[in-house]
């Protein structure tokens, strides 16, 4: 019995960024502890579809294989998640694999997440520490705060929250929850805080924070359990204060 057990996959494929997507079915021999990536590797090893026709191996992205890089995100049975931690034993069959269509599809399950990295640059998701001379050590961070900030730092720019958000789509410029939460992370850092206003002003621009419609799908979908909606609400408060300062405050930076 066990040796005849198979796994069915229905993969949404797309040959080029502009061509029409189509579905292809694969039936693979079951192996213990299989995950979606090992199944895709099996297809790559023997690229034959369910009809027995020879086909081109499915293209997908992967890197760390332990859910910390975010590269292998795709829509698995309707939910965006990392394919490395999607265990076949825990999935309903046939297993449907689709690319995260919020992003431009490069090929098959491979998408271009550049917009997320552009957003991180836009919101200045880093801490400037360089000077023309040694600036010495920065202020200390309380341990309790460090532990809290660590949770926010788990973001791997995987794109799942953007895929789940109804306001991130081709009709809107919304940068999405992930880069917003990074603003809260870097603004919480004792040195990063020195550039707090710059980051807040960046997310007060077009396509920024106010595009959030509070559907809260992001916090439900985040594979790292990052409190994205708390970050957004906290930034709403910070930008309210920043807007007040900008308008009524003095010219002091």
């Amino acid at each position, binding site marked *: 019995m066990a040796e005849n057990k198979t796994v069915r996959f229905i993969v949404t494929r797309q040959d080029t960024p502009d061509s029409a997507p189509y579905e292809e079915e694969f039936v693979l021999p079951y192996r213990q502890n299989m995950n979606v990536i090992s199944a895709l590797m099996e297809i790559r090893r023997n690229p034959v579809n369910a009809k027995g026709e020879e086909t081109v191996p499915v293209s997908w992205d992967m890197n760390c294989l332990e859910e910390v890089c975010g590269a292998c995100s795709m829509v698995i049975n309707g939910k965006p998640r990392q394919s490395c931690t999607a265990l076949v034993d825990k999935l309903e069959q046939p297993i449907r694999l689709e690319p995260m269509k919020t992003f431009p599809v490069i090929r098959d399950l491979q998408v271009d997440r550049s917009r997320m990295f552009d957003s991180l640059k836009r919101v200045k998701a880093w801490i400037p520490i360089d000077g023309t001379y040694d600036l010495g050590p920065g202020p200390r961070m309380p341990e309790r705060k460090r532990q809290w900030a660590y949770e926010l730092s788990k973001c791997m720019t995987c794109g799942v929250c953007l895929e789940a958000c*109804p306001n991130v789509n081709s009709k*809107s410029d919304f940068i999405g929850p992930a880069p917003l939460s990074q603003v809260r992370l870097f603004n919480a850092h004792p040195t990063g805080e020195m550039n707090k206003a710059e980051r807040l002003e960046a997310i007060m621009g077009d396509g920024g924070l*106010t595009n959030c419609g509070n559907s809260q799908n992001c916090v*439900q979908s985040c594979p790292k359990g990052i409190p994205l909606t708390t970050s957004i609400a906290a930034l709403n408060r910070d930008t*309210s204060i920043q807007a007040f300062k900008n308008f009524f405050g003095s010219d002091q930076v």
Partner: protein
Amino acid sequence: MARNQEFLWRRLHSLLGVIPVGLFLVQHLVINHFATQGPEAFNNAAHFMEGLPFRIFLEVFVIYLPLLFHAIYGIYIAFTAKNNTSRYGYFRNWMFMLQRITGIITLVFIAWHVWETRIAAAFGAEVNFNMMADILASPFMFIFYVVGVLSAIFHFANGLWSFLVSWGITVSPRSQVISTYVTIGIFVVLSVIGIRALVAFI
């Protein structure tokens, strides 16, 4: 539209939805509730409102302009969303979609309601108990009014919840849960007031 004005427009949209449009809605529902005390009580209340000094300025700055901005910008917001409740059937995602749907229904309802009452009044009709009783005598219009009033109240109550988030008042998940219960309470109370008034006309 100038660049980087979106923050201002969105926050203005959020603010105007509550102050003054939301407050006007509550006041309007409360005045309508006089209908439950009979035609005379309703007519007195309506005439008092009509007789307020500087009425046209009150109407323009407290109702027409804020409502028009909220409605027009709201249509833009509603149509830039790509609803996905079939894939993500979470409570808040449903509220997100319902907020957009009730916004559009409310807009259609208010447009018709203003045409039938305020614009008719401008052309000489008298807005009183009989006028509403005539309108609501038709079962179709009664249902239309029930749907419209409930949509408006839902849109206000749920909008109040997101107003609190959008301005950074309810930040913690717990405060957001409690404000969900509070706004459900507001929805129920205002719905009872609104429906009681509608029923009083038939």
